[in-house]
């Protein structure tokens, strides 16, 4: 069950829930961009922004911790690699490898930034219906020529829907093979192909049935894009995000 909670929409009525999904995507991009260059003051400000939004969206601290835990190792690797590679005043050295003061500081900043970006992404996905994300992307891609935005949107939806199904199939097949002692085979390539081929066969069969079912329900690639409407608060949010970005660039 744990995996199903990860980055999953939770209904609500907060400021973020009510924001237009397009506007949320733009703001998320702007804020992430601001984060990349920010140092102490900026990072504190962004953390505060996150805290306020998370509090407003009713995102419990436990969830935040839980989600970050998955990325914990990743954050640690970023921190350590910074510690070891930044040149500067060494504070500890072992067999020619130096941990520098600058490295520790830079490492802290890097993982702080990364954590913030992950958390902002979490806020976005917790407060936005998958379908709205899809619609927003369809709207944002529409003005770009030669990009089949409707097809991309449909594909995104199907991917979200079918990843758990395909994972389930994979688990089933791998269990069945382990029950017949595939673990005894030493050749990893053989073991891999024994798993991948049946999964692919099942997935292709399923995709044909899926196409039948979609056709039965009158699927038409040119279905109208659901309308979205930006209201005043959305424009205010974007203005604020731009403002924030400029300020953070200059401090």
């Amino acid at each position, binding site marked *: 069950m744990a995996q*199903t909670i990860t980055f*999953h*929409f939770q*209904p609500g009525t907060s400021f973020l829930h009510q924001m237009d999904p397009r506007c949320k995507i733009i703001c998320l991009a702007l804020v992430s961009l601001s984060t990349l260059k920010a140092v102490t003051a900026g990072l504190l400000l962004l953390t505060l922004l996150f805290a306020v939004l998370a509090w407003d969206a009713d995102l419990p601290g436990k969830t935040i911790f839980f989600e970050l835990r998955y990325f914990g190792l990743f954050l640690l690797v970023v921190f350590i690699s910074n510690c070891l590679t930044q040149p500067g005043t060494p504070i500890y050295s072992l067999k020619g490898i130096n941990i520098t003061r600058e490295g520790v500081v830079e490492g802290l900043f890097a993982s702080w930034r990364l954590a913030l970006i992950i958390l902002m992404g979490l806020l976005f996905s917790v407060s936005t*219906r*998958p*379908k709205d994300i*899809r619609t927003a992307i369809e709207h944002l891609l529409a003005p770009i020529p030669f990009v089949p935005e409707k097809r991309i949107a449909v594909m995104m*939806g*199907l991917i*979200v*829907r079918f990843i*758990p*199904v395909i994972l*389930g199939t994979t688990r089933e097949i791998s269990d069945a093979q382990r029950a017949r002692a595939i673990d005894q085979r030493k050749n990893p390539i053989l073991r891999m192909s024994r798993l991948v081929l049946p999964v692919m066969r099942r997935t292709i069969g*399923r*995709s044909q*049935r*899926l196409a*039948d*079912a*979609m*056709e*039965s*329900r*009158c*699927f*038409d690639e040119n*279905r*109208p894009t*659901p*309308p979205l409407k930006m209201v005043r608060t959305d424009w205010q949010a974007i203005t604020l995000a731009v403002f924030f970005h400029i300020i953070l660039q200059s401090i």
Partner: protein
Amino acid sequence: MNIIEISNLTHQLIGGKPILNNINLTVEEGEFIVVAGANGSGKSTLFKQLNGLLIAGKGQVKVDGVFVADDLKRARQKVGMIFQEADSQIVGETVFDDVAFGPENLGLPAEDVGRVVNRTLDLVGLLDLKESPPHILSGGEKRRLAIAGVLAMAPRIIVFDEPFSNLDYPGIQQVQTQMAALHSEGHTILVATHNLETVVGMADRLILMQEGEIVKDGPFYEVVHFAEEFGVYLPQSVRSRGEFQAWLKR
């Protein structure tokens, strides 16, 4: 009024022997028909003709007075099709989105879609799960979601292909309840199955198929006695009733 009319239908892959051979079938509005037959007897192929997923080379299929091949969209709206594998017919990221898929395709305005979806989910008892991703649903719930997805398009004929496969007992009961309710509302119901036990007492009419042909067609309790002859298990209740009557006659 015949809601389905199939005449001289033969479906054949190039160079192969026919999968459906000279099928003639008329269905009246409001009937509850079971189509039974061993695996490979052509039940699914026959059903797919009803909404034009397959179109046979020979013969004609009319739904509600119009040839299916002439207006596929109309046929697909009139004939709701529920497939054997619920998982591959659920397309939405959430329960709500999945039910909305059909009405959106039919071009309903967003407010109407919301209203229709909520009403349909309420009908099949899934309203509480409307924000859930479909993969966390149980087998019976997935099947009900598949039914809801079809009902939201307001079809008059509902076709179930092996609706009881892979379901536990509560799941079977949920689907049976749903079917009975739809039938009593006046929908025409067609069910393909090789387990007649699950439809005893619900169906008016039974069609037995073998190797692409309709071999028996008539009132359920008359035709059911031929079931074993064509590779379909005779329901225990029918069997014991027959034994009881034989004992009375003795």
